[in-house]
């Protein structure tokens, strides 16, 4: 294989002009350079996953320190300032640097395979999204290595606490800048996914045949491009206040802190669905596979996902029931929030409908998926309690809220992501995870999670506010806090086992054949690990569960594939894009510029920022000029055939 020929997509088909050395195209297929310059969606997805899991562990350590501090009343393992830093970084890290990129890893890796595509629509833009995400993560975490320390304004960064008056040092600047970079990365990636899903589906894959996970990718991508502009505006305004003395949130000059809350939550609530919809997509893949049955009510599951995304934009102020919005606004947001429970409930009903009458294979991914359904139900119910504004007046900013959203984000998002890793591991690496160790880690995680967060419902109802580094011994909070801390360490051990098992399996796990789980969607039709071109022959889709259909109509499919292969051969083989260094160069420029704006002391900001801008612009220019050339490869025929 790998017979490289010049692409006929070269502009004008002209004989290639002798290009300047700056247009050097890296061709390394292994080693560091191959990773830094890759445009392969699978490699990029893998890198997203690695970075996300790293930050997941960092955020986990932060969580354990928080729980350690709260294990007993009046503890002093952490100072007040350190504690505030911990919960700020725990929230920011888990949301932006762990769960979102882990979802992005699956979007990248799985979605093109599910829709029968050979890559995303804009492979180099995809690389740019990855590296800009890494740049944002670096900026947010630089504070650990600086005197000013990491940000301490909360993941929500409410003005005016985050204004220059109350947080003079650089830590908030880094938070503001880092989040903006993450916004750029997320929006670029989302546009890429949208174009990919709209344009690159295999022949025959109508929208109503797109697997639910890819559907949720699409909905999530729309949520991202519609919601991130709101927080970007807020962050830019805050940055202007801090750097240039504007007065968006500067109270003494008539600024409106409540404006920040609206802008933040116009982003922040869709963000909740950005975190949970991919999880719901994963669950909607796993349950049918392990029940050996199609998803119950596919159109309704898809529609309810879109509906949740849509309604998600109309409920932001339920995070602000205590800001004195008045009766009418409070009532409207209260009812809108309750309305979201309907499409969410519909999903749960359909998942139960899916397993009803199936042959349930209780493998580890299925355990996590069922765990998800249970835990997500509980998180959903406490969510309904918050929707009732009068009840929320007591629960807001108490531990009850912490219990609620951890049930949704750990019991929900994280369980689904852990399920997804188990589920697609045989596809990605061609090895299977030990069922014993997988299930053991599931049960420890499940137990630890509930021991940690269930008591927090009672803490909240018993009046313990959030974000408090200490509490008195005589308020009745001692026992639940201690139990929660013990639970957190059990959860930590479970997660540790999970990852050790994954690393072990990656290196030494038992090799498995293609389509290990008897899957239903197209990603299972290809060899494992997938070749770089994904599909030797682009499949033709005849039904919703395309691969399941293929498996049961082999002759018909074989004929079509032969025809497609012929077409490809006429073009000289499978067209692959060249690798490129410029997405990385552009992101490095952005990183330098962001450091200039946020980290460097006043007076030296401009030169560093300008240097960064210059690198960025050079990167973009060269990226544009090098063109979207590619090369052709011939797929291995026995590889391509089942």
């Amino acid at each position, binding site marked *: 294989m790998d017979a490289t020929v010049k692409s006929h997509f070269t502009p004008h088909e002209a004989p290639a002009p002798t290009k300047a050395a700056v247009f050097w195209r890296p061709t390394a297929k292994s080693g560091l350079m191959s990773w830094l310059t890759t445009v392969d969606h699978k490699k990029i997805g893998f890198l997203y996953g690695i970075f996300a899991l790293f930050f997941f562990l960092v955020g986990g350590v932060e969580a354990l320190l928080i729980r350690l501090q709260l294990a007993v009343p009046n503890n002093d393992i952490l100072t007040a300032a350190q504690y505030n830093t911990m919960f700020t970084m725990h929230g920011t890290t888990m949301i932006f640097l762990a769960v979102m990129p882990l979802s992005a890893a699956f979007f990248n890796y799985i979605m093109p395979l599910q829709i029968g595509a050979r890559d995303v629509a804009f492979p180099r833009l995809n690389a740019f999204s990855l590296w800009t995400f890494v740049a944002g993560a670096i900026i947010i975490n630089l504070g650990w290595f600086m005197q000013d320390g990491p940000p301490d304004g*909360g993941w929500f960064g409410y003005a005016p606490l985050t204004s220059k008056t109350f947080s003079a040092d650089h830590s908030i600047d880094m938070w503001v800048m880092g989040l903006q970079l993450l916004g750029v990365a997320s929006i670029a990636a989302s546009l890429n996914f949208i174009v990919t899903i709209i344009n690159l589906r295999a022949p025959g894959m109508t929208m109503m045949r797109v697997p639910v996970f890819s559907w949720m990718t699409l909905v999530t991508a729309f949520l991202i491009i519609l919601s991130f502009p709101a927080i970007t505006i807020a962050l830019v305004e805050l940055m202007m206040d801090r750097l240039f003395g504007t007065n968006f949130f500067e109270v003494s000059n008539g600024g409106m802190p409540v404006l920040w809350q609206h802008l933040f939550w116009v982003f922040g609530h869709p963000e909740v669905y950005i975190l949970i919809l991919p999880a719901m997509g994963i669950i909607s893949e796993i349950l049918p596979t392990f029940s050996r049955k199609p998803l119950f009510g596919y159109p309704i599951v898809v529609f309810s996902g879109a509906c949740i995304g849509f309604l998600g934009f109309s409920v932001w102020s339920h995070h602000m029931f205590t800001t004195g919005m008045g009766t009418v606004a409070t009532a409207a947001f209260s009812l809108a929030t309750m309305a979201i429970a309907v499409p969410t409930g519909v999903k749960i009903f359909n998942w139960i409908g899916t397993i009803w009458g199936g042959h*349930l294979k209780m493998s580890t991914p299925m355990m996590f998926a*069922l765990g998800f359904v249970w835990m997500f139900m509980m998180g959903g119910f406490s969510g309904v309690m918050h929707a009732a504004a009068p009840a929320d007046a007591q629960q807001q900013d108490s531990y009850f809220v912490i219990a609620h959203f951890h049930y949704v984000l750990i019991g929900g998002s994280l369980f689904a992501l852990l399920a997804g890793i188990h589920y697609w591991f045989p596809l990605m690496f061609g090895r299977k995870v030990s069922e014993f160790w997988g299930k053991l880690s599931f049960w420890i995680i499940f137990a630890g999670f509930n021991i940690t967060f269930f008591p927090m419902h009672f803490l909240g*109802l018993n*009046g313990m506010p959030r974000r408090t580094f200490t509490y008195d011994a005589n308020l009745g909070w001692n026992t639940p806090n201690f139990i929660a801390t013990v639970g957190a360490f059990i959860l930590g051990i479970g997660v540790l086992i999970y990852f050790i098992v994954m690393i072990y399996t990656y290196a030494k796990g038992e090799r498995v054949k293609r389509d290990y789980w008897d899957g239903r969607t197209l990603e299972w039709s290809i060899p494992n690990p997938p070749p770089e071109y994904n599909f030797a022959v682009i499949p033709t889709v005849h039904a919703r569960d395309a691969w399941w259909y293929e498996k049961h109509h082999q002759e018909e499919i074989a004929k079509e594939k032969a025809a497609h292969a012929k077409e490809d051969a006429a073009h000289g083989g499978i067209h692959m894009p060249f690798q490129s260094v410029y997405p990385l160069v552009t992101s490095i420029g952005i990183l330098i510029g962001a450091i200039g704006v946020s980290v460097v002391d006043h007076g030296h900001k401009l030169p560093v920022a300008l240097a960064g801008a210059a690198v960025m612009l050079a990167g973009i220019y060269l990226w544009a000029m090098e063109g979207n050339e590619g090369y052709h490869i011939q797929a291995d025929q026995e590889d391509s055939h089942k």
Partner: protein
Amino acid sequence: MDGHQTTMVTAGPVAKAQLDVFYVTCWVTLVIFVLVGAVLAYATIKFKARTDADEHAEPPEQSHGNPLIELGLIGASIFALVIIAVPTLKGIWYTYEPPAEQKENVYEVTATGYQWWFKFEYPKEQIDGVGSLVTGNELVIPAGRPVVIQLRTVDVIHSFWVPKLAGKVDMIPNRGNHLWLQADEPGYFWGQCAEYCGDSHAVMRFRVIALAEKDFADWVAGQKQAARTVAATAQAGADNAKVQFASFKRNEYGFTPKWDANATVSPLDNWKQQQFPAKDENPALIAQGRKLFTEKTCAGCHTIRGHEGIGITGPDLTHIGARTTIAGGLLENNPDQMARWIAHPDVVKPGNKMYTTGYLPNNVQLTDADVAALVAYLESLK
């Protein structure tokens, strides 16, 4: 679930209304959870593949769904939500403003958040030549009457929360918020800031004391008095003031035995006792403290009405000795805790605006003897 700060044991109509709505949501969701959970558990057990052969048997019927079931379940969900929505809407309007028939009877107070303490102003209680009565960190209200509290802040966002009386409402800069609450019976209630407001957010606490009508009138009359001056007596001199204070471990925040569950005196009785001067006062030491209060620049930030203090950036201390707590509701008010607070403000309240390496703004330092004198003086201000 019956702690000092619980939301589950209420002492007034607002908190009660909020708890009632909570119970409605709780029961409705619990019923749904049991029903759905039962079906899920049943399906999981019933359709589980039990053997290897089972797993590899012919796949089950590839059914795609049933629109009637979907519609039925959607209808049922909407019905369940309506059960929650009706009391929710009622509650939103009820908790927003005191009932119309009570309008005449409303007592009004203004609460202002500072990093990290609360100021309380009584616009109805005017003092000649001074203005409204002002106090800090302990809000005294009449029991059995609706109290409307105007919520303000001078710096960042805070949130006013007394769980047994009412849910929280935020204090937001450039925004006039309010809440109303009512204590049905006289009592002593715990409150705490509920919006993250910086370093010492966790120790920004306060108390609400509800008094019967007569007691409340007496309290107001007493508060309107200028600060108490202890008459000098002949026998005592400043130098015999070898006062020893208990020492505290670094991490003993707000250790408050008087409020433990097994305390012998009720918190409200404890508050009442606090209104009387101590028997063993040392007039000379107190006079020394009063002098230091000006010399050490305390007076620049704190008001002691009738004495020298004129500052307004810190809490009003005119009757500090009669409060049950100090340092923003954090520590029990007794000489030991007062000494601890004055000697180590940075430890008790990290990031506080009074002290960094010395007392602000001139980095003033205090000796142990200074602390003893100041404690005696402040505790005398009943």
